[in-house]
């Protein structure tokens, strides 16, 4: 039987939940298991309620599960708060001195940690104990600890090894229901969260300048990139505000390097004018909008898919742009790398719609991620011009894409203006130039559209299709599976390439089903609206979640059932 268990490590912010979670993830990964973990925390630094919820399975998993098999409670209030989520045979492990009773295992974390050499190792105790309950060999954790602390100091390593062992041994023979076979296996792929995936994708896209203003849930992308600035040709600059961030990125790109910024809704608002500048000056930029619930400050550390229509329509007037929404870390890596390619090829802004779920969740990507050996650039210079002195930055041609030279890179002068302009870049208010330039920019659309991938269909030809985008992917595909198990003909459609909208592909797909339902993390079914706007097809129902938390497959299935 398939193993599929969920462990929730819950406590206060500042108690080191993340560390326990990381250890567990690493061990399961090393053991060749699959996992998917979400991170749930409040907008505060200490106290409150916080958890790391990891689902471990011997089959690929890309969605969290609301039922908990093991609750590791770092304090009593977390125990009280989440006890009701336990499965019938679920266990609670709680940091109390002693007193196992019923499904409750007392784990004196701090005491054991002190025995091991210091309170600071309490999280390692917890990790060891969890692995004990899972019947895992302690060896894997030991290896991980060696990797992590081996170089730092022998004492620290010794303490942690001892802490792990104490925790591991403390649970003795207690095992919880889901049994894994812990056979030595090679990892199934790589362990990755969305933030890192976007950051690495940026490097794969040859991103060299990033500027940002801290904003959850986008900050992780930038701090990870900052940690890599010793190893890559990359500048990461914290700007004074988001307006500065996007304009720095425009400046860097204009000067010739690929550049990106990342933010969330409020910051994206402030960037919209700059995105318009990138558009009219045809300066390639990549902007990540990691969505969280709004409006305004909303729920700063939570997740949402509420900005789709906003980013498609953001900034005054009209211009071509790409909007891409990865559904998993692996997609995030590839889409981000592709974003830089598309931005430069078409000289347009590319917006990547991520969200807190994508950014802060970990899962295993089996597909191997490849660093491109070469980067195709779309830059011209004097040597490729007949007459550099007559270079026109906005020369009109049927593709709408004018050869792009860089400033101060030869005889060709580069003139760019946020005002409407002539082909040479000088301001123009003439009717003819205006029409020429609008049409030139719009002329890119057919080719841009041809770059749009068709939505990914799982179980084609189903009677019912669940249609979603971005981080909804895993839960929706799993939900469709649950409904199929009930004998229903249900498939799913996952969209990453949202704009320019691949209307023909979507129409072709949706025409094959009897009914389609949109599944979205917002309250007005924005993709549903978009599909209707672009194809005329109206959805037959919407499963919407807007409480700031990620989708669970169960609740999607339940939402769909209501319509049946």
């Amino acid at each position, binding site marked *: 039987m398939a193993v599929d268990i969920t462990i929730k490590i819950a406590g206060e912010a500042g108690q080191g939940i993340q560390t326990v979670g990381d250890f567990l993830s690493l061990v399961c990964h090393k053991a060749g298991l699959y996992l998917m973990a979400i991170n749930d925390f409040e907008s505060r630094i200490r106290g409150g309620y916080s958890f790391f919820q990891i689902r471990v399975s011997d089959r690929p998993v890309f969605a969290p599960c609301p039922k908990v098999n093991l609750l590791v409670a770092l304090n009593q209030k977390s125990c009280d708060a989440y006890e009701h989520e336990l499965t019938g045979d679920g266990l609670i492990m709680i940091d109390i001195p002693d007193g196992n009773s019923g499904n409750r295992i007392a784990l004196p974390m701090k005491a054991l940690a002190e025995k091991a050499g210091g309170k600071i190792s309490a999280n390692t105790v917890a990790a060891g104990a969890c692995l004990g309950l899972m019947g895992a060999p302690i060896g894997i954790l030991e290896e991980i600890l060696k990797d992590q602390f081996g170089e730092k100091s022998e004492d620290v390593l010794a303490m942690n090894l001892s802490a792990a062992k104490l925790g591991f041994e403390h649970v003795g023979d207690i095992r919880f229901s889901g049994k894994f076979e812990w056979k030595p296996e090679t990892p199934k792929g*790589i362990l990755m969260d969305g933030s890192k995936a976007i950051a690495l994708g940026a490097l794969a896209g040859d991103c*060299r300048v990033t500027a940002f203003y801290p904003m959850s849930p986008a900050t992780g992308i930038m701090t990870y990139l900052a940690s890599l600035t010793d190893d890559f040709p990359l*500048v990461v600059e914290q700007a004074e505000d988001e307006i500065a961030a996007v*304009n*720095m990125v425009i*400046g860097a790109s*204009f000067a010739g*390097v690929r550049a990106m910024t990342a933010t969330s809704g409020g910051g994206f608002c402030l960037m919209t004018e700059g995105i318009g500048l990138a558009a009219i000056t045809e300066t390639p930029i990549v902007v990540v909008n990691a969505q969280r619930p709004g409006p305004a400050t909303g729920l700063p550390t939570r997740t949402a898919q509420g900005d789709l229509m906003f980013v498609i329509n953001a900034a005054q007037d009209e211009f071509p742009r790409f909007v891409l929404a990865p559904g998993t870390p692996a997609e995030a890596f590839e889409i981000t790398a592709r974003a830089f390619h598309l931005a430069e090829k078409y000289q347009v802004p590319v917006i990547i719609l991520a969200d807190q779920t994508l950014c802060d969740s970990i899962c295993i990507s089996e597909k191997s991620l490849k660093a491109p050996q070469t980067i195709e650039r779309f830059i011209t210079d004097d040597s490729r011009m007949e007459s550099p002195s007559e270079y026109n930055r906005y020369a009109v041609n049927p593709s709408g894409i004018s050869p792009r030279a860089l*400033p101060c890179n030869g005889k060709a*002068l580069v003139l760019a203006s946020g005002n409407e302009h002539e082909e040479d870049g000088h301001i123009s208010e003439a009717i003819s130039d205006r029409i020429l330039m609008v049409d030139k920019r719009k002329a890119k659309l057919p080719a841009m559209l041809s770059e749009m991938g068709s939505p990914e269909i799982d179980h084609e030809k189903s009677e019912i299709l669940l249609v979603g985008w971005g981080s909804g992917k895993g839960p929706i595909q799993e939900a469709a599976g649950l409904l199929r198990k009930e004998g229903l003909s249900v498939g799913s459609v996952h969209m990453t390439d949202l704009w320019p909208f691949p209307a023909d592909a979507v129409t072709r797909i949706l025409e094959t089903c009897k009914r389609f339902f949109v599944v979205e993390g917002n309250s007005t079914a924005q993709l549903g609206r978009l599909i209707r706007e672009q194809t005329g097809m109206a959805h037959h129902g919407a499963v919407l979640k807007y409480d700031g938390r990620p989708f669970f497959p169960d609740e999607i299935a339940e939402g769909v059932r209501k319509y049946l």
Partner: protein
Amino acid sequence: MVTVQDFDCTYENKWCPGCGNFGILSSMKEAFAALDLPPEKLLLISGIGQAAKTPHFLRCNLLHSLHGRALPIATGAKMANHDLTIVVNSGDGDCYGEGGNHFMNAIRRNVDLTLLVHNNKVYGLTKGQASPTSDPGTVTKAQPHGVIAESFNPLAVALSLGAGFVARGFSGDGEQLTRLIQAGIRHKGFALIDIAQPCVSFNRVNTHAWYKKRVYDLETENHQTDDLQKALALSFQWGDRIPTGIFFRKETPTFTERLGIIQDGPIISRTHDPQKLQDLLSAR
């Protein structure tokens, strides 16, 4: 040898006849020529406004951007390629109004560029509303009862933020202004030149003649440009006597000099190493 004529361009100038901007434009060309900086080695970045149109009126590489945003754009360009010679043309509204926050932060970063603020104490392009540097009491269509806020003192603010090159020019003194622009470009780091610029259409008070009567050159008074407290005190002098010239000068490491990562050369010319990335991608 670069000449002033090298910068002449055929694009129609759109300023009002008699505007102080013409003087600034001339001094720019003179300074570039004197520094032997050809148009193709020059990147002019500007915001939006009459001042910000300047780059269109001479031959150069240019990015005429958004109202208030020239400085972060210039900062970004420097990150990409710190070998660029960047001059920013901005107005008092563009730089001290909409762009106020960027003004402060470009100074804090000590970005190596030369900022020319065409300070006509009014919003010219939008037809004469008050700007941050308008004097209290100034009556405009938007301020029919007169401006009530204190006027913004760019030199004092720049000095209090640690700016390393703080100067005032006057569009009516082309010789001095040319010298200032040259010195600003030569200065390693952020150089602010606030330029008293008459607007013949909307500022009937601070005219060419008005300034002519009041300006004096600090150099002639033997001002020591390394005395911050003195410079601060002078920055408050305004009225019968208006100091021009370099108030303060001190070179400290620039933004890109302090960015350890790009000491090997501009990031634009570094090569990408796919192996390092592949290691990261495979390691987890």
